[in-house]
């Protein structure tokens, strides 16, 4: 028979949006899932952010210094008098907080960090979803069609990225309502920068998680990988605590953790006075991270999606 040439003019990206939308539909058509995925970061932000009110250490439980041998009792009495003055305590607290966290309010510091946290947790599931598709046979079905292998992978990436951006917007919206104190340089346009940072970090992270799962057939392995990586990735970043208070051995690790850069970019855009040079470094790092790992993901998909 004669080879038949069908649809030669086919767009090389055909199917990419359909595959992405397939995943998104599972989310926005399922109000229960949608609600759960928003509640989780809110719980972190509302409870963790409020309970870990570090500034309150100074103001909520005023201390008195006992007499110390060799120290002038009147000096201690003077300090104790200051320590029982709420205005003084508030001042100490605000100064120390601003020095360490860049803002006097830990909740503001933390709620912006939650944006990275949400992105991390959302992108982790893209690895799971490729394992499910393999198990249910959908992956084989898709592989038997002329859709680009890279599109199969990138649809999962974009699904995670789009979800992350929407969740980030919701989280920031709630944070404003709950008392996030924005910085002097903040304008609503800065939010576009925040979404760009989420886009880049989400793209890199989900590419990594998909690459880990690309040959896997076991859901359990993926869950173990997620459990192994999620909190360490968070703790080795500046999402919850500034790197300046971390031990020396940990600091270099935070410097290679992309979450640090995404969080720093977000904080600069929302909370801090913008340091243009530092912001550019953040975006350069995030851009390289996204480009390198999505390329690695696509290369792996050519070789390893088929068996």
């Amino acid at each position, binding site marked *: 028979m004669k080879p038949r040439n069908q649809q030669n003019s086919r767009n090389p990206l055909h199917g990419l949006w359909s*595959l992405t939308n*397939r995943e998104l539909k599972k989310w926005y058509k399922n109000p229960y899932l949608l609600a759960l995925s928003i509640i989780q970061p809110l719980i972190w932000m509302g409870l963790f952010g409020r309970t870990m009110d570090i500034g309150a250490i100074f103001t909520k439980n005023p201390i008195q210094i006992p007499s110390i041998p060799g120290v002038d009792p009147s000096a201690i009495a003077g300090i104790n008098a200051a320590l029982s003055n709420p205005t003084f305590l508030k001042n100490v607290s605000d100064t120390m907080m601003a020095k360490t966290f860049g803002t006097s309010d830990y909740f503001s510091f933390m709620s912006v960090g939650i944006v990275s946290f949400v992105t991390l947790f959302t992108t982790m599931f893209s690895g799971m979803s490729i394992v499910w598709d393999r198990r*249910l*046979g*959908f992956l084989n*079905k898709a*592989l*038997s069609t002329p859709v680009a292998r890279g599109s199969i992978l990138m649809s999962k990436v974009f699904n995670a990225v789009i979800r992350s951006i929407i969740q980030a917007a919701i989280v920031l919206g709630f944070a404003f309502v709950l008392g996030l104190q924005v910085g002097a340089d903040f304008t609503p346009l800065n939010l576009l920068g925040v979404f760009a940072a989420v886009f880049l970090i989400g793209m890199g992270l989900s590419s990594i998680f998909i690459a880990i799962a690309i040959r896997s057939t076991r859901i359990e392995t993926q869950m173990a990988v997620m459990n192994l990586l999620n909190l360490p990735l968070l703790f080795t970043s500046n999402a919850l605590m500034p790197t300046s208070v971390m031990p020396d051995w940990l600091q270099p690790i935070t410097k290679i953790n992309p979450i640090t850069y995404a969080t720093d970019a977000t904080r600069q855009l929302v909370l801090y006075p913008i340091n243009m040079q530092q912001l550019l470094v953040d975006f350069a790092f995030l851009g390289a991270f996204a480009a390198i790992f999505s390329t690695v993901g696509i290369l792996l998909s050519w070789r390893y999606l088929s068996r």
Partner: protein
Amino acid sequence: MTETKSGDALVVEGLTRVFNKHLVAVDHVNFQVKEGEIFGFLGPNGAGKTTTINMLITVLRPTEGDAIVCGYNIAKQSSEVRSCIGVVPQEYTADEDLTGWENILLCADLYGIPRDISKKRAEELLELVELTKFKDKQVATFSGGMRRRLELACGLINRPHLFFLDEPTLGLDVQTRTATWNYIKLLKKEYGMTIFLTTHYLEEADVLCDRVAIIDHGKIVTIGTPEALKESLGGDIMTVSIKDGNADISNIIEKVPRVKEVKKQDSTYRIKVEEGEETAPTILDAIRAEGHTVTRLSLTKPTLDEVYLEYTGRSMREEEESKEAAFRQRATMRRARGQGGR
């Protein structure tokens, strides 16, 4: 590279797949599928049917060998191959969270078919498989038969030249199975489509296929039309059981005229005879004359079952399947029986 003979939709030469360096799932398989025929791949579980199909639909790389699908090489022109084939996998691959309509359009998009064409085709195909009424329902609510029909429709969305069906009626009830057979026959008759199907239901192969290949342990053991295969058995099959399991009376039976072959399994003898109706009494007489008691007797005209057992043996198979394949098969069976979508 293999030359395509005109008139062949599929040419397979020396196709081999080895898993984990030593498990030979498909072992130097050769065959051709002619334009417009329904070709059946018949074999026990784990014989290599799905592995073969997965290589032909380009989702699994061959370790060795070549195949030409619709004139394209599966290794070098996999994208062209994918464009001209349709695939209905063994498992239900439709997304349960989407509706039937969304699923079929998703398939169309994977083939890059423009929306104005794909919508028209999707309507036609849903009409063909009688799912128009249910197209806006979530697939999770579909019965096994409905899901199988949806898979058929999805597989046809690109008007494939060669249509691959892997165990198309696995787990279906008799009514749905018959209906599925009718759709398959219709595709051949109305559209002249070439169809490659795997099955381990012999009746299915007999009813549907123009030619069948029997595959076992990764090798094709015989190939031909169902009629030719039945005739190749060279006669009727008589089975006789005797009371004394220790005695071997094969040589007694062999001496009876028109007996062509005797195979002993415990106290049962599987005897190939010509003109069974006349020969059977003679055999009985011969056995009794030696003082043995016949406890059981049957005489069958050759069916594809007999052909199958002739070539693959009677022993049951220990399935050597991957966990993943086993999981999918269980899920398929469960859904086919309509026991919940998730």
